[in-house]
């Protein structure tokens, strides 16, 4: 049997491709190495009930995968660290049906126009492969609008003066503002920033047969118990309902087969532990910017740029303590407000760049948020007689508010994913190894914007503030790997797109220059990282690539 397309990965990229292709009558098989907790495969109109408000299951027991024992990753900052300096959980975006869409808190902003023309708009940076994308915002805008409708996005098209132009409104209005975000937005506005309701893949009303979000607060890191989140569930359901799609969870694709000129299909290991193969006219790879280059390398593909230019948003966290306020951040959508000012250079950031010896610098979106997770909080406090009083007073949860900046990470050729020389996954295949260290740009942008975020917290009335970064000084959950590894799940750039096969791996439609019936449909193809969350942009690119496939 030859299917029209095999899709590797069921996250926002793979699900979008499945939705577009099956609507055009193509037969597709979606392979997902993780478990299925999302849809009833026999009755796709029914949604699973496995997700819950359960901090243990999601934060400490790897419910969404990958389990770091079965599928570890390795990390090093550079060859001086040896083969690797850490083995275990490194930046594990979920491995489950729905992929990274499941755990996210559903912020889905678009990029700005100049994010696609970084070299032309801002110029080069030493030590970084700053480049323009082979497509523009205008090329992508119809697909942004399309995937906003597919996913179900709430937002206010008028609220952000720094946003790119839009062809129409959001499909839904914004949901309720979190109490802390009401206060932090007011303080930010007072200081001249432009906060706005975060575009959210969380239903503010009944949408596409799924309910409105009821503000349970278990959003970031959790699957949605009532399916009010625009994880890829809607796209997968639609694809399955056509009868043209088959979804195979717990199935690991180990190799793309080729005849030298074209891909002919894939080898895979199913839940039975046995290797099989399947023929396909197209192979779509949507495993994310870590697993996708790993599969290309496992398949013996030899383009020298595969795995290179790994980008991970540089996180700068400013936290503030408020003795007289309780933010109850366990209520609501985790993050309801953003501001984009750090993405638009101003006189102050230009001066800071000059001082750091850089031609320019950009930060990223600043998320207004708090935390409502008591186990996470408890593990931070010391043990002993003061423990319970700390938990009741709650200086690091209920009385804390924070800004997180997802800073633009420049593409650097030595930052890369390759195959670890010794560490294997449970099926015996080499695991992905990160080699990563930030460019001076990220450090300078963080040093510039961190104190500015802290100043907003002070204007809001904070008694104390503190700034930490990841990579760098942020601790994160107790079993978190190594402070050198970036915490942000925004991984990008390892199979970059471009017109020239010498400087890029895929073309503007995501097709490998060397094997045009292999299509990459995830954030691997990003040329630059911007400072916006990657989900909507990768879904828009996937919709565009799938549309190009069907002609």
């Amino acid at each position: 049997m030859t299917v029209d397309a095999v899709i590797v990965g069921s996250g926002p990229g793979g699900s979008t491709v499945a939705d577009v292709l099956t609507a055009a009558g193509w037969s597709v098989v979606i392979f997902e190495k993780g478990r299925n907790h999302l849809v009833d495969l026999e009755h796709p109109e029914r949604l699973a009930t496995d997700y819950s408000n359960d901090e243990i299951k999601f934060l400490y027991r790897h419910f969404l995968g990958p389990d770091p024992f079965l599928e570890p990753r390795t990390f090093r900052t550079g060859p001086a660290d040896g083969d690797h300096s850490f083995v275990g959980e490194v930046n594990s975006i979920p491995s489950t049906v729905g992929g990274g869409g499941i755990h996210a808190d559903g912020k889905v902003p678009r990029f700005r126009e100049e994010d696609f023309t970084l070299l032309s708009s801002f110029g080069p940076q030493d030590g970084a492969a700053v480049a323009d994308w082979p497509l523009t915002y205008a090329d992508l805008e119809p697909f942004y609008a399309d995937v906003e409708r597919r996913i179900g996005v709430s937002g206010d098209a008028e609220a952000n003066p720094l946003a790119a132009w839009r062809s129409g409104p959001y499909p839904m209005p914004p949901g309720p503002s979190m109490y802390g975000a009401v206060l932090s937005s007011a303080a930010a506005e007072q200081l001249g920033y432009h906060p706005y309701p975060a575009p959210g893949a969380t239903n503010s009303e009944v949408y596409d047969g799924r309910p409105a979000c009821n503000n349970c607060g278990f959003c970031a890191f959790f699957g949605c118990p009532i399916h009010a989140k625009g994880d890829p569930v809607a796209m997968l359901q639609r694809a399955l309902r056509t009868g043209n799609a088959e979804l195979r969870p717990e199935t690991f694709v180990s190799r793309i087969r080729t005849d030298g000129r074209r891909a002919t299909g894939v080898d895979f290991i199913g839940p039975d532990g046995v290797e099989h193969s399947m023929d396909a006219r197209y192979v779509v790879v949507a495993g994310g910017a870590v697993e996708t280059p790993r599969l290309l390398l496992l398949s013996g593909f030899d383009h020298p740029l595969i795995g290179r230019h790994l980008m991970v948003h540089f996180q700068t966290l400013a936290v503030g303590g408020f003795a007289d306020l309780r933010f109850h951040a366990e209520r609501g959508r985790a993050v309801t407000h953003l501001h984009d000012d750090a993405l638009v250079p101003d006189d102050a950031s230009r001066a800071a760049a000059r001082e750091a010896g850089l031609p320019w610098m950009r930060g990223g979106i600043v998320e207004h948020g708090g935390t409502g997770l008591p186990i996470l909080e408890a593990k931070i406090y010391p043990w002993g007689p003061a423990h319970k009083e700390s938990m009741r007073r709650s200086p690091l949860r209920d009385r804390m508010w924070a800004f997180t900046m997802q800073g633009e990470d420049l593409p650097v050729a030595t930052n890369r994913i390759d195959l670890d020389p010794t560490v294997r996954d449970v099926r015996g295949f080499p695991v992905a190894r990160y080699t990563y260290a930030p460019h001076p740009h990220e450090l300078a942008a963080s040093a510039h914007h961190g104190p500015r975020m802290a100043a907003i917290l002070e204007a809001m009335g904070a008694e104390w503030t503190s700034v930490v970064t990841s990579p760098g000084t942020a601790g994160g959950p107790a079993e978190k790997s190594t402070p050198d590894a970036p915490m942000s799940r925004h991984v990008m750039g390892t199979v970059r797109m471009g017109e020239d096969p010498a400087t890029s791996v895929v073309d503007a439609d995501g097709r490998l220059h060397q094997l045009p019936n292999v299509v990459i449909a995830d954030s691997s193809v990003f040329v630059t990282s911007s400072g916006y969350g990657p989900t909507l942009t990768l879904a828009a690119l996937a919709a565009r690539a799938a549309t190009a496939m069907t002609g």
Partner: protein
Amino acid sequence: MPTWLTPEEYETLAAVCDFLIPADQTPGAAAAGVVDYIDGLLGAFSVDPPRIWAGGAFSGRHGGPAGFTEFHPLTALDELAWRTRIEGSQGRPEREFNGAVVGLQQRYREGLAALGADFCARDADEQDRRLRANAPFTKLVYEHSCEGMYGAPEYGGNRDGIGWSTIGVAGDVQPRGWTDDEVSEA
């Protein structure tokens, strides 16, 4: 009766947990069920499905059916991961593809032994000294104690939600959720 710990180990662990999260005007870790949470993890495979992942979508505490008590069945790979994590690799090749793994059961058995059979009978200064002398084990017990104190009661700890009520959090809230006013107002 404990599921996996011996009665003596259970008693020592209760003293350790109470030292780490002591009672004040509200119950300490042991009274809140933290030792049962840890014992339930160490003995997770004594029941089927194993006590690894509580079910969904709702607990029943805020409406809807009580799904948390129906633990998820594990796949063969899930079982391999969790048995290795709990029991250790024990020289079995399928558990040692990246080397030997020391399991939680061994860490607890050896850790509690290192604290001494007389741990419960010693004064607070001596208990403190022994816990600090066994810092990696103490850190492990503390992290598990935080989970048992403030995690879902279905895992054996946080008895009757006492961990949540003493610090004023609701724990799980589905399917009720929060109203828009509860989100946006002080």
